């Protein structure tokens, strides 16, 4: 039951009790007024009864005076009394009709007794008028008149008593009703106080306490405690508000738990990324390792720009495999990404080992083909060279790789083309060819990601552009040439590359003039 219904019911109860009290009070007041009126009327009737008694006494005195004196003058009280008796008896008859039957019976008996006596008195008065005093005295002596008068007096006495008793009863009734009315009026403020108390209790129980519990629950939620159930109770609508708060709390708790789970997943993902980032950086440093020191007159630089992430399908190595022998390795695995990077690394290790074992570049590629076997659907292109830093003699082998560029001091460019097929698909043999790096010569090896990079108009970067750049740049420090080349590539294609790009550059200083 909701709060409004409950409060309405209490108010209705209060109003109903007030109406009932009013009705009973009105009845009591009416009753009291009736009783007072009856008492007044009975007082008047009792007084009339007394006067009736006096009137009969007057009649009796007048009759006795006439019988003794014989003069009509003596009869005057009799006549006056008789008139009064008739009048009073008529008034009494009228006045007692509404009272009880017993009073009426007594009155009737009194009137009858009065009639009987008046009949005897009339006979005695006739006898006095017609036959004189003696005859009348004789009749009086018969005691009939006296007996009848005594009867009358007795009856009058009963009537008076009866009326006085009735009057007293009416008075008592009136006083009783008055007391009841006072008591009833006293009940009104008591009921008012009780109602006020009841309302206070009801509001406390139905509203105040649930509100207190609700406030405490909301404070708990605000403080971050979402585990305690909110139980408010009270009227249905108040309890419904409590239930809504509890539902809100449960929803928040669920969401929080969900976000906790998500955070845990995110934490794990971050940890995984951190772990793999370490591996990735390690892998990258292996793919494009720092170049060591080179003999005087020689500089080398290299860079690898992956198409995505930090690792690539490209890989290079420029290192001294012997005190005067510079080994240059550039590998490109078809595709780009972490899986290709692992294959690239493996290829690099095999080729480096082969060069350290003093295998010729062509034989090194043969060993690599034998070791990697079938790489389908991927394949490898590779360029391997050995440069003698004392003579500038260069021996190389190219497995399906874009031609390396050898620019002489006089800007003549030689393309060092494939000496065998790409690796990992078909069987093949790779021959070793020779070239010469005279002082001032530049030797550049790159991957197809460079020449096949396209600008917004879909134009290829191309080998010619790269060759021109390599030829025109002074080659005191290989590092700065590499940087200029990548800057040029970035200017050509500012957006993300679609394939990995590697450039390795070896420079031989011009001889001091």
């Amino acid at each position, binding site marked *: 039951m909701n709060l409004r219904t409950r409060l309405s019911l209490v108010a209705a109860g209060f109003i109903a009790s007030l109406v009932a009290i009013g009705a009973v009070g009105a009845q009591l007041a009416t009753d009291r007024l009736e009783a007072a009126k009856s008492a007044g009327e009975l007082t008047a009737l009792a007084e009339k009864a007394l006067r009736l008694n006096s009137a009969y006494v007057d009649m009796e005195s007048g009759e006795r005076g006439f019988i003794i004196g014989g003069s009509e003058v003596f009869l005057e009280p009799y006549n006056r009394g008789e008139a009064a008796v008739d009048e009073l008896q008529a008034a009494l008859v009228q006045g007692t009709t509404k009272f009880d039957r017993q009073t009426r019976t007594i009155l009737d008996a009194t009137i009858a007794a009065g009639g009987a006596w008046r009949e005897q008195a009339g006979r005695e008065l006739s006898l006095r008028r017609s036959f004189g005093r003696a005859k009348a005295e004789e009749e009086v002596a018969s005691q009939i008149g006296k007996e009848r008068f005594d009867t009358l007096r007795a009856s009058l006495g009963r009537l008076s008593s009866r009326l006085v008793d009735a009057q007293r009863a009416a008075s008592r009734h009136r006083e009783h009703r008055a007391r009841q009315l006072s008591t009833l009026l006293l009940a009104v403020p008591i009921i008012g106080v009780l109602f006020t108390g009841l309302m206070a209790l009801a509001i406390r129980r139905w509203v105040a306490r649930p509100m207190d519990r609700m406030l405490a629950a909301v404070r708990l939620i605000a403080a971050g405690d979402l585990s305690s159930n909110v139980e408010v109770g009270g009227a249905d609508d108040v309890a419904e508000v409590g239930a809504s708060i509890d539902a809100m709390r449960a929803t928040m708790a669920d969401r929080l738990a969900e976000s906790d789970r998500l955070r845990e997943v995110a934490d794990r993902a971050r940890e995984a990324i951190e772990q793999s980032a370490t591996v990735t950086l390690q892998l990258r440093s292996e793919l494009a390792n720092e170049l060591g020191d080179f003999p005087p007159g020689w500089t080398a630089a290299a860079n690898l720009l992956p198409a995505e992430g930090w690792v690539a399908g490209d890989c290079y190595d420029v290192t001294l495999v012997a005190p005067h022998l510079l080994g240059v390795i550039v590998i*490109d695995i*078809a*595709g780009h990404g972490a899986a290709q990077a692992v294959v690239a690394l493996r290829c690099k290790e095999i080729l480096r080992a082969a060069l350290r074992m003093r295998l010729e570049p062509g034989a090194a590629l043969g060993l690599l083909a034998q070791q990697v076997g079938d790489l*389908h*659907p*991927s*394949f490898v*292109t590779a360029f391997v060279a050995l440069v003698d830093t004392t003579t500038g003699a260069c021996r190389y082998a190219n*497995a*399906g*790789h*874009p*031609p390396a560029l050898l620019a002489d001091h006089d800007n003549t460019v030689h393309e060092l*083309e*494939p000496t*065998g*097929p*790409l690796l990992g*698909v*078909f069987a*093949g*043999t790779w021959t070793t060819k020779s070239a010469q790096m005279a002082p001032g010569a530049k030797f550049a090896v790159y991957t*197809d990601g460079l020449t*096949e990079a396209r600008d917004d108009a*879909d134009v*290829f970067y191309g080998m010619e552009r790269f060759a021109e750049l390599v030829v025109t740049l002074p080659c005191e420090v290989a590092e700065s040439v590499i940087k200029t080349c990548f800057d040029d590539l970035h200017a050509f294609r500012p957006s993300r590359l*679609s*394939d990995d790009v590697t450039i390795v550059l070896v420079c031989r200083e011009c001889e001091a003039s």
Partner: protein
Amino acid sequence: MQLTTTRSGDEAVVTIAGDVDAETSPQLEAELNTLFSGGATSLVVDVEAVSFLGSSGLSVLIGAHRTAERFELRRGNRIVDRLISLTGLGLLYGDSEPA
């Protein structure tokens, strides 16, 4: 890249026009796979109108060469000829020895 395919019994001829690079080669690979799973055993690839063939496209052609019972790459495109020559993949042209 545009692909045109004609089927005649077990033989299929695929004509490629435009660039075959990292972006378009998956489409070529899907087309060839559909042909093979549809029962084609002999494949002729016409690359006369190809404007660019990247390593990813080359990889798809090598795969097709392996899958098909008979594979023929038609000569005549300078760009493709040069690439085949550089990579030593004369076998794709049906040469007995690497270029």
